[in-house]
Structures are given as structure tokens and as C-alpha cells.
């Protein structure tokens, strides 16, 4: 097998073991030119390892890495046409901003006059005009971030690797930098391979999202595909909020849940195949009991600013519904689900691992526990004293 010629980077059957444990299992991934692709997954799923394999810092135990169709497994990092923005920036502390950015070009023996021009260009690109002589140790986190990006981009890489580049920044700065990174990617028209465990960040910035878990790719797709058509319960649960139900696909376009038939748009399943069904909380309408397809009792209401998050107990299954209408706790209501709001998935090893929101109120209590502590009786030692 070789990488597809049209892809700038291809991973084929990549497996990596650490201490006898597989942290990547047969990763296959094609990355196209000028694409903003994001590796998304929970902590420890192997995102950084995948990125380091592309950068050349980790050698896969099995499988091959192709750049433009050429196998590069044995090419060391300093000969690969990619550059990395490291998680904690890894700026050279003994060099100022200018010398940090000029590091790459100087190695390639670019004339100093041209370096000076290029550094200026890069500083402008990352909005740090006039910062040449500053010490990198005295910059804020956001500014260091920008220097790290400039230091990588001055080498004209075809591909930029970014490992949770915004992880250390506060929320406001994060949002600004997300917009800016996207602008830089489009302005330079190069490929970004971006690592994050923040699903919102992934959805809002990427052309393609790669959802990973336990060293395996779960799904590759556009943000819309990932959100609207998750392939299994893990993806549905990890991306956004979702009600995941057991169903039986009795026929094309007809799924049975709670013993009732629901119209849906999915087909191609075997007759009477057991399936997982996803219904997003914002796609559910709360109506009167008579109008509802199912009915239950409101058990919890949380105001979220834009909407209310309402938990409804329907025959023991706790649904989450997001709506702008207010419904009081203990109200008996019906819910309505349109066919296009229902998404049917094949059963997977994740089936049953995620489900309803019955743990919702427990989670809530756990969160408020620290506040309750002062009211508890003093610990035994304190009394003895």
C-alpha cells in the first residue's frame, strides 16, 4: 500500500506501543493540501503521538508515513518539510524575538538582509510589529504563542503542526487566537494539522475533524458530518450533547423506540437490526401531552442564557431538551421529534456506555459539594484539640 498521490500526508496502518501497550492502533489518515484538519479526542487518546509521528519525533512500530506519496518513516525531523508549534511554545530563552524567528532561515544560510525583511513580514502576520528586540522571556503567553507561530511559518512549511496551541491561554484570548489562526492559515494557504481536546474549537475552525479515542480513529468528516451524523455512541457523546437511545430498525425509514414507531431518514440497515439512536437536545420540541409522541415529567431546569436545559423523565429514560420556552419542574409534557432530528447508528463497542442524563442531577450535586463543606461538623482531630 502506498499513500494516495493527491494527499500531502498519508498515514497507513500506524501502530505505536509504549511499554507494551498500544497507544495507536492502525491509524489510517489522508491529509489534503491547504486543509485545516483537527485531531480531536479525550486526554491520552494518542493525538500528540500521532502529531509527533508526522513531525518525525516518534517512529511508528508498524505502518508507514507518506509525504506526497513518498515513504518518510526514516527521514529525521530536521529533514521533513513540516514545522511544529509546540504546546509550551519551546522558544529559545537565550535569544530575543528576532533571533528566535530567524533561527530557521539562518540554518539555511539565507542572507541576513532577506532574513530581516522576512522576520518583519512574519511579525506583521502575527500582529507583533516592533517586537524584534524584546526578550521572549518577558512576553505574555499570547505573545509567546505568536512568536512560536512566526518562528515556524518563516520556513514556508507546506504543513504546520500545532499541538493544543491555545491550551495555556484564557478563554477570551483563545477565541481571538482561534479567529487569527484561521486567518493565518487562509492567508498563507497551507495545511494545518491541529490537535485539541476542545470540541467547540475543533468544530469552529476545521475543514476536517478526526475524532480519536483509545488510539483509534472513530470518525473522519467535516464538522457538520461529525455533528449531524456521528458514526457511533462515542462520537455522538463526545461532540455536543446528545440523547442516545436503544432502538430497533424495523424497516427503512422506521425505527422503534419505547415500543413506538418513529419516522426517520435512515435506511440500509438489516430488518429488525438493533441500533443506537441519537437525538440532539436542540432538535426536540416540548409540546402538550396530547400532541406529544412521548410524554414525561420535567425533573430539572437550568437557565443557560440562550436557552433552558430541561431534563424530562420519560419512562425512566432522562432526556435532555434545549429550548427557549420555560417549563417548570414537575410539569407533565410531551415531546415531538421530527424525522430529520433522528440519527440512527450501528451498534458499536460504545453502545450502552453512554445513554441518558440520569446522572445529570448527581453531577450537579458533586459540583456544589465543596460549598457545602463548611457546614459539616468539624473533623475528629479538631474536636480533640
Amino acid at each position: 500500500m502506498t499513500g494516495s498521490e493527491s494527499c500531502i500526508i498519508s498515514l497507513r496502518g500506524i501502530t505505536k506501543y509504549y511499554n507494551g501497550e498500544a497507544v495507536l492502533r492502525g491509524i489510517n489518515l489522508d491529509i489534503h493540501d491547504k486543509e485545516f484538519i483537527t485531531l480531536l479526542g479525550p486526554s491520552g487518546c494518542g493525538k500528540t503521538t500521532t502529531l509527533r509521528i508526522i513531525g518525525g519525533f516518534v517512529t511508528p512500530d508498524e505502518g508507514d508515513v507518506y509525504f506526497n506519496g513518498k515513504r518518510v518513516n526514516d527521514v529525521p525531523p530536521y529533514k521533513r518539510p513540516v514545522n511544529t508549534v509546540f504546546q509550551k511554545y519551546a522558544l529559545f530563552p537565550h535569544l530575543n524575538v528576532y533571533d528566535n524567528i530567524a533561527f530557521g532561515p539562518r540554518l539555511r544560510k539565507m542572507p541576513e538582509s532577506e532574513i530581516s525583511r522576512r522576520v518583519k513580514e512574519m511579525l506583521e502576520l502575527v500582529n507583533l510589529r516592533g517586537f524584534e528586540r524584546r526578550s521572549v522571556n518577558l512576553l505574555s503567553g499570547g505573545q509567546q504563542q505568536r512568536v512560536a507561530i512566526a518562528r515556524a511559518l518563516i520556513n514556508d512549511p507546506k504543513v504546520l503542526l500545532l499541538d493544543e496551541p491555545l491550551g495555556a491561554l484564557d478563554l477570551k484570548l483563545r477565541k481571538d487566537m482561534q479567529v487569527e489562526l484561521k486567518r493565518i492559515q487562509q492567508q498563507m494557504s497551507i495545511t494545518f494539522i491541529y490537535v485539541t481536546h476542545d470540541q467547540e474549537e475543533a468544530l469552529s475552525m476545521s475543514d476536517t475533524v478526526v475524532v480519536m479515542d483509545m488510539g483509534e480513529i472513530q470518525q473522519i468528516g467535516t464538522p457538520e458530518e461529525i455533528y449531524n451524523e456521528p458514526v457511533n455512541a462515542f462520537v455522538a457523546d463526545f461532540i455536543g450533547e446528545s440523547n442516545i437511545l436503544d432502538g430497533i430498525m424495523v424497516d427503512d425509514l422506521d425505527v422503534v423506540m419505547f415500543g413506538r414507531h418513529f419516522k426517520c431518514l435512515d435506511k440500509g440497515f438489516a430488518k429488525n437490526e438493533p441500533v443506537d439512536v441519537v437525538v440532539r437536545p436542540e432538535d426536540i420540541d416540548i409540546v402538550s401531552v396530547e400532541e406529544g409522541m412521548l410524554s414525561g415529567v420535567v425533573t430539572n431546569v437550568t437557565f443557560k442564557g440562550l436557552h433552558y436545559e430541561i431534563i424530562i423523565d420519560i419512562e425512566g429514560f432522562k432526556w435532555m431538551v434545549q429550548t427557549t420556552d420555560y417549563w417548570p419542574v414537575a410539569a407533565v409534557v410531551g415531546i415531538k421529534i421530527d424525522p430529520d432530528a433522528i440519527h440512527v447508528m450501528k451498534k458499536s463497542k460504545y453502545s450502552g456506555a453512554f445513554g441518558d442524563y440520569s446522572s445529570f442531577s448527581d453531577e450537579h450535586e458533586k459540583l456544589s459539594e465543596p460549598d457545602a463543606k463548611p457546614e459539616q461538623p468539624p473533623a475528629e482531630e479538631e474536636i480533640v484539640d
Partner: protein
Amino acid sequence: MKTMIRIYTVLVYVFLYLPIAVMILFSFNSINSTGVFGGFSLRWYRELFRDSETLNALKNSIIMAVLSSLIATVVGTAAAVGIDKMRSRWLKSVTLTVTNIPMVNPEIVTGVSMMLLFVFASRLVRISGVLGFWTLLIAHVTFNLPYVILSVLPKLRQIDPHLQEAAQDLGCPPLKSFFLAVFPTIVPGVLTGAIMAFTLSLDDFVISYFTNGPEFQTLPIRIFSMTKKRVTPDIYSLSTMLFAAILLLLIIINVLQAQSEKQQSKKKYY
């Protein structure tokens, strides 16, 4: 209470420095006496510099200090980098303990055991009279190593572990990456280690006594052999010069450390 503490402090320093002060004073004595100060003169310094054997010992000491500290710095820095990269915590702490033991080991034990090793090894290869320049150099490098390692390691711990990778990422081969990205940031530690090694080598007596040979004497050994004959004030002047040299080196080490600490705290604030 305050005055008590003050008096106590003064007493401590008097005890610490009085002998040295007296020695320095008598090194400038104009007469040959240990009890009476007959006026200021450089007579004993002049005498010292006329003594070819002493001058030779001075030269030997400097050669030994320069060579052994250079070798120890190179080897020790490389060792520190290796220790820093160790993944297993267990292996790391074992290595560090093994590194530390020679520092707390009584010098006389180190000296005797090294002499034994050298003599034993020379018997094996049937060479006699090995003790001399080379054995002394090996001994000095050996006891200097832990000090270099322990002054470089903390610097390595402070830096971003990805610095070398960052340089490689920008197109730099691995070894060059170390010298361009990592080494400049640990220079203060390397320098401190080098000067410390130089100082230790310059003032070592016990270990040198057991591992040197008759044809290569260092200053401390020369001073010791002079005292065996007759204590004359030129010994004081020699000791004074040794003291001054080592004091200077210690000051340099302290200044270096204070400077890198200042840099470190600057980083934290921003």
C-alpha cells in the same frame, strides 16, 4: 538578646578567620619568627619565587586544575544530559545516589582506594611506578565529576524539554541542536561546575597525596612537605596565595549563581 546574637556571630567569625588572618599577617613579616611581627615586607614572597621547586609545584597545580576541570566539565555535562533524559524515575534516582556518594565519602577513603586501584591495575599490566601525572589527573577528574553534574542538572530541569526538538524541527541536526538550543541556556550551570572543579582540584590535598608520584607535586603537597622540614614564613605566603586564589574563585561562582537566579525570577514575573 540582640547583642548576645551579635557577640556570638562575631565570635564565630573570629574563630573561623583568625587563623587565616594571623597567617596572612605573618606572611608579610620581615623577620623569620612565628611569634614576633618585625614589620611589613615582601621578603618571604620573594624567597618563595626564588624556590624553583615551589614554582614547579605551582605550575603543576595549575596544569592539573585546568586539565581536570576541563575534562570533568565536558564529561560531567554530557552525563548530566544523559541523566536528565532518563525516563525511568527509579534508574534516575539510583544514578543520582551513585553520583552523590563520592562527595560524602571521606577523602581519605577515596584516596587510599584509588591508590590501591592504580597499583593493582599496574601490577596486572606489569608496569611499576604508575603513580604520577596520569593517576593524579584521573583522580582529580573523578572527584570533580559529581560537582559538575550537580551544578548542570538543575539548569537542565528548568528548561523546556522540547527545546532541542524545536531546533530540529527548524532544520537543525540533533547534535548541533544541542549546542544551539540547549547549551546556551545551561551555560551558567556549566561555568559554575567548571570553576568549582577548578577550585577543588587546586586545593585538594588528601586524595592527591595518595595518588601522586614523586615527580609531579602539586602546591598543597609541596606545602605539606615543606612543613615536614621546618616551618618558615614562606609557607605562610604560599598558603596565603592559595587562599586568595580560592577566595576569588568562590566569589566568581557566587556572582554567577546570583545572576542566573535573577534571570530565573524575572521569568516568573511575566
